[in-house]
């Protein structure tokens, strides 16, 4: 056999390259294959590593080992079903979609809250370095609506453009603003498409959509999974749990809040996510949209830095009051029209 091969190696150039490649492939397969296998068997590695918490009692040690193996197994299974978005896991989950929602949690925090007539969006600004400007997180979509986003801002920019064009098209045909619930639905349908095509990936951005329509002010949260819900108040992004806890204590009175009170609560919620860092007008953005008492519309607009700084300073002047009043306000559910703590 070998002589046959060596003979063909010395004859015609074309044929022997082909045979040489086949031979090399066959050879390398048999040698390289086992190494590849060991890389995907983490429990083998684990066996070789020393166990830091090995128990002296063999029965308990066995139980710990069984638990660990289960964890390893489930983690291995999770890795097996997460390659593309069109693969279900045995537990009925789409891991790619869940990973996309993780991307939202990496973005800096955004909060949204609304009363019957006004909706406010606020975002914590994060700059890549001291030299650069901060990432833009709040976008106006139409006179009556805007979004705040957390996650992959490039995806967010593209989706903002989509939302703007939907609003413009609707206004062109109907000469009226696109109702916010229908806007949120179109965005959610677009996100859903990306969870059901093998050649796409889910959008890695969560959007808080705030707007005004005939039935009042609305706030929606659209997530990469294609789900959307309406909220009285919500927070997304990193360290948003602190903001959510703050909002949970106070949201029941929001329907009757004045626009000013809403802005203050939004800033306080953002402050919670900064965790120690000082809140200034340069590290947050606030926008508001609503309908005044006389019926005229206040279009969606960012609030300028000077005014934000003034509000922050006046909040700091009554710093002790919010903590005490917040505890009492949670017990006064039916007195939503009471003055906000800052006004004491």
């Amino acid at each position, binding site marked *: 056999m070998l002589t046959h091969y060596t003979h063909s190696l010395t004859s015609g150039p074309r044929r022997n390259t082909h045979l040489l490649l086949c031979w090399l492939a066959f050879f390398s397969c048999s040698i390289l294959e086992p190494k590849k296998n060991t890389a995907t068997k983490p429990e083998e590695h684990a066996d070789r590593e020393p166990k830091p918490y090995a128990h002296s009692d063999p029965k308990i040690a066995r139980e710990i080992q069984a638990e660990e193996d289960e964890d390893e197994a489930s983690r291995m299974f999770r890795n097996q079903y997460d390659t593309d978005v069109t693969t279900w896991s045995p537990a009925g989950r789409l891991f790619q979609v869940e990973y996309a929602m993780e991307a939202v949690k990496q973005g800096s925090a955004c909060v949204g809250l609304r009363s019957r007539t006004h909706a406010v969006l606020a975002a914590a600004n994060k700059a890549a370095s001291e030299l650069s400007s901060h990432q833009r997180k709040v976008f106006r979509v139409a006179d009556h609506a805007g979004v705040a986003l957390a996650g992959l801002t490039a995806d967010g920019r593209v989706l903002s453009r989509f939302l703007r064009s939907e609003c413009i*098209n609707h206004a*062109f*045909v*109907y*000469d*009226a603003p696109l*109702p916010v*619930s*229908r806007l949120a639905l179109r965005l959610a349908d677009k996100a859903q498409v990306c969870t059901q095509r093998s050649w796409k990936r889910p959008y890695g951005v969560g959007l808080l959509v705030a707007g005004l*329509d*005939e*039935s*009042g002010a609305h706030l929606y949260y659209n997530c990469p999974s294609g789900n959307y819900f309406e909220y009285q108040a919500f927070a997304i992004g990193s360290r948003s749990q602190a903001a959510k806890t703050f909002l949970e204590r106070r949201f029941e009175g929001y329907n009757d809040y004045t626009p000013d009170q809403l802005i203050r609560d939004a800033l306080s919620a953002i402050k919670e996510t900064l965790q120690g860092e000082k809140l200034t007008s340069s590290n947050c953005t606030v926008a508001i949209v609503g*309908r005044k008492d006389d*019926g*005229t*519309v206040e279009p969606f607009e960012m609030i300028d830095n000077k005014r934000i700084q003034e509000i922050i300073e006046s909040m700091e002047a009554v710093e002790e009051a919010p903590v005490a009043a917040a505890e009492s306000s949670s017990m006064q559910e039916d007195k939503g029209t009471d003055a906000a703590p800052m006004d004491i």
Partner: protein
Amino acid sequence: MAWQQPMDGSHASGSKVAAADGPGTQRTQYPYVTGTSVIALKYKDGVIMACDTGASYGSTLRYKSVERIKAVGKHSLIGASGEFSDFQEILRYLDELTLSDHMWDDGNSLGPKEVHSYLTRVMYNRRNKFDPLWNSLVLGGVKKGPKGEEKYLGMVNMIGTHFEENHIATGFGNHLAIPILRAEWCEDMTFEEAVKLVEKCLLVLLYRDRSSINKFQIAKITTEGATIYPPYSLKTHWGFAAFENPSKGAVGSW
């Protein structure tokens, strides 16, 4: 989502133009079954609209019980003159629109301004394709806006011309009724005053428009909704001396 357009070739009033426009395309050349004038005006509680219930086939007064005014959604009335089959098609589009709006059930509803804007887009788009919906449409309604109840009255025609006004008339009404309306319309008329003014215009049209018949429908739209009254006739007077003996002035046998 853009409005839906009917597929080419579904037109009653189209006629095939061979080759030049490609296979299956049509250009509307002329209407077949047509309705005559529609009159409308704003009054205290809303908008009143009236027209006769006839549809002509050329010079024949063919159909005598045709309803040319219909309610659209909760807030509007639409009246049409021109090709009746095109009006039926428009009603079908509006049906789809109002149905999907209703199914949303989210507190938002299409008001007369939105319907008028939508129809303008449809009519203008069809005109640009040389396949118009051969109608003059009158759109009236009342809807609660941020500044209280707002009355709306507008019209759009087959070439996409559209405007809003306190009183509207289409077809022959443009020539016969508008002068009367301009002279006698005023802000905040009562229902009875408005009906009287409308009947005055309808009577003139009955006497002078050869395609009108003596059977009319009046409709009104207010915040309570749309009401289309049953058809009725107007009293006409033909007892003029010149009509007594028509052949009096005729000389000879022919």
